[in-house]
């Protein structure tokens, strides 16, 4: 009897230990709702991915990314590289919220992954602290990589003091997403390529009024939808959230106030701020409660795999007819764009292999493959057409059309972007006008506040 009890106890203890070991062993590619590749929707952190591994010597490279949707495509490309080089590639997905904490603690502890994504929010900080591998010599010797082939804004982002520290991996643009079924239901004309923001306002007004009983709104934008939302309207009117030298802002200028006044007008016929703050524009849209939103190309997969995806259509981002001449002139149609970069750790044990992998990802061939697999639009100019055709049944041409018919502006960033970016979204920034869109004074005052907030934040950097 005593022995039997002992055996049972031992068996249970062994199972417990085995359970702990396998759980901690970490399954790679932890599930997450895949924060967007460049903006990274910060809500909904989901479950954690496994810990970022240490940089490994020998025949393996450790790669960290934050977007689960891109994992399969990137692993396929990496495997093709493995066949050539013989070195295994281990791709790790860490959710957006934890990615930077992990990277910075890895940087302080000397254990960064070998190859990883860089983003405009933090690029300057990492480059100035010599944490990224200097790629100049490698690029000079590599005839497959020529920085002139990539989007200039992204190349400049990852360039510090004349040296290149990351190579552009992708880029994204913004388009107008609308629910065709809702437009048909309420008898409103669907968006066309010559729509202005006034047309958006009119259509949203009709849908909101007609859809009151069903709780449907014509438009939805939260103060936190900046790159994919109101930044674009603001810039259409000629103001800049951050000036080209990254040291100032014109958000409080006449143009800025005109732009935000248009935003305010659209807000009067949009879902209330408390609603979008609690539920998020994406959830509301896929629940068929919003007629239109603007979104970025990194979110294509979310809507493609949604239940009613057949009703969702992407249209060209509208423009602002500032000079009133009835057509779209230079600078009246703008879209934010951003691009991630592939970077290597300055202390990685096998820099040659790390560069070789980066070069493969960023070469014309690798970029075309990335687009074909529907991973993201290429950082390599001209390689994105395959992306448009990667999602059967959906017309994504709006994302490349904006580049020809409009102007791209880089996602506003400074050395410590999140400080002012978050402040703009809270009380004392633009939160009050979002809550009370009927009052134009609030929006105008908020523009002045925003000007001060950004200038103070830059002064403190």
């Amino acid at each position: 009897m005593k022995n039997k009890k002992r055996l049972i106890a031992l068996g249970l203890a062994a199972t417990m230990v085995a359970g702990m070991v396998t759980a901690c062993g970490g399954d790679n590619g932890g599930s997450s709702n895949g924060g967007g590749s460049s903006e990274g929707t910060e809500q909904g952190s989901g479950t954690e991915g496994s810990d970022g591994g240490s940089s490994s010597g020998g025949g393996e490279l450790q790669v960290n990314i934050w977007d689960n949707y891109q994992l399969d495509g990137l692993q396929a490309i990496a495997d093709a590289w493995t066949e050539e080089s013989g070195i295994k590639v281990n791709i790790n997905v860490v959710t957006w919220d934890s990615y930077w904490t992990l990277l910075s603690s890895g940087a302080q502890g000397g254990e960064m992954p070998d190859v990883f994504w860089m983003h405009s929010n933090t690029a300057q900080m990492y480059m100035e602290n010599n944490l990224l591998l200097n790629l100049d010599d490698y690029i000079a010797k590599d005839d497959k990589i020529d920085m002139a082939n990539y989007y200039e804004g992204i190349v400049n982002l990852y360039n510090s003091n004349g040296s290149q520290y990351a190579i552009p991996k992708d880029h994204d643009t913004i388009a107008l997403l609308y629910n065709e079924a809702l437009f048909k239901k309420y008898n409103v004309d669907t968006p066309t390529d010559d729509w202005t923001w006034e047309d958006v306002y009119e259509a949203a007004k009709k849908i909101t009024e007609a859809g009151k009983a069903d709780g449907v709104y014509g438009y939805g934008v939260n103060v936190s939808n900046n790159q994919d939302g109101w930044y674009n309207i603001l810039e259409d009117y000629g103001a800049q959230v951050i000036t080209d030298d990254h040291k100032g802002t014109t958000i409080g200028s006449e143009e800025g106030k005109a732009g935000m006044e248009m935003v305010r007008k659209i807000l009067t016929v949009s879902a209330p701020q408390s609603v979008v703050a609690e539920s998020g524009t994406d959830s509301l849209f896929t629940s068929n409660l919003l007629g239109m939103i603007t979104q970025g190309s990194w979110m294509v997969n979310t809507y493609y795999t949604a239940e009613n995806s057949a009703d969702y259509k992407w249209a060209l981002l509208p423009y602002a007819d500032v000079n009133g001449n009835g057509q779209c002139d230079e600078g009246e149609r703008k879209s934010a764009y951003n691009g991630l970069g592939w970077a290597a750790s300055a202390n990685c044990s096998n820099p040659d292999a790390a560069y070789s992998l980066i070069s493969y990802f960023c070469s014309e061939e690798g970029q075309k493959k990335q687009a074909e697999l529907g991973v993201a639009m290429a950082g390599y100019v001209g390689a994105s057409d395959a992306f448009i055709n990667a999602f059967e049944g959906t017309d994504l041409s709006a994302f490349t059309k904006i580049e020809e018919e409009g102007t791209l502006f880089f996602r506003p960033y400074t050395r410590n972007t999140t400080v002012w970016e978050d402040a703009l979204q809270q009380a004392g920034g633009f939160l009050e006008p979002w809550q009370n869109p009927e009052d134009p004074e609030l929006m105008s005052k908020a523009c002045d506040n925003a000007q001060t907030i950004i200038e103070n934040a830059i002064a403190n950097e």
Partner: protein
Amino acid sequence: MKQKMTLAEKREAVWGWAFIIPTMLGLLILNFYPIFDTIYQSFFKTGDFGLGNVFIGLKNYQDMLFGSGKAELWQSLWNTIKYAIIEVPFSVVISITLAVFLNRKMKGRSVYRTIFFLPMVCAPAAVAMVWKWLYNQQFGLLNNVFHTNIAWISNPNIAWACIAIIGVWSIIGYNMVLFLGGLQEIPGDYYEAARIDGASGIRQFFSITMPLLSPTTFFIVQTRIIGALTIFDLMFMVMDKTNQALNKTQSIVYVFYQYSFTNGNKGVGAAIVVILLVFIMILTVILQKLEKKLVYHN
């Protein structure tokens, strides 16, 4: 006169130390060192990645207590106190009642005890996610079942109370288990004697149970106050950062998280944490002084 230890006592002492060393090391390295490092960092304007710290003396404290951060700091401290005012009394009262009822001989007692303890087993993030959608104004279960349209977590006047309700719900099981332990210690003779003398159940509760349970109650109240003052995950996960009610609900640790991790300003974050530490220490001193008066010891 100091007595020298015998050999046997010396050996015992050595073994005693040997068993304590792992925990002591852990405490020293993982608790004491970070505490002093945090206090040290609060006097600096921290640079990126721990390099380039600039000594600025008490400026962080001045800014947060009297200067630009004053409104945010004091409001968040008050928010945290409001949260604690709801979480601690309600959870203690409810769990004492539950513990007393679940201490009798009844059918399915273990089942009930398990059910009430289950909230403790759930991951805090999961709990927050579920409650976030329960409270959602448009689609939440609460508004749809009771046909109300209350902005549970967007109304600045009630959002803090709703968050505190989540806190109460999740900690009831833990308190109940501790109270059950305390109840087992009370000899049944007292209750027998009281019954013979004709005391009612309620009279027994207030005259026997409460005084004899007071050491446990005191311990739970003290630890729960400290726990409630350091609340962070509920506000962080349930409320979006653009939530209108955030200003009147965010806890002081939430403000710390924003400064330290979102904005990368760890010096100011460290100062905030030290301020909270001082506040909790003052409270603890007050509670310790009250212990002598409130707690009944044999």
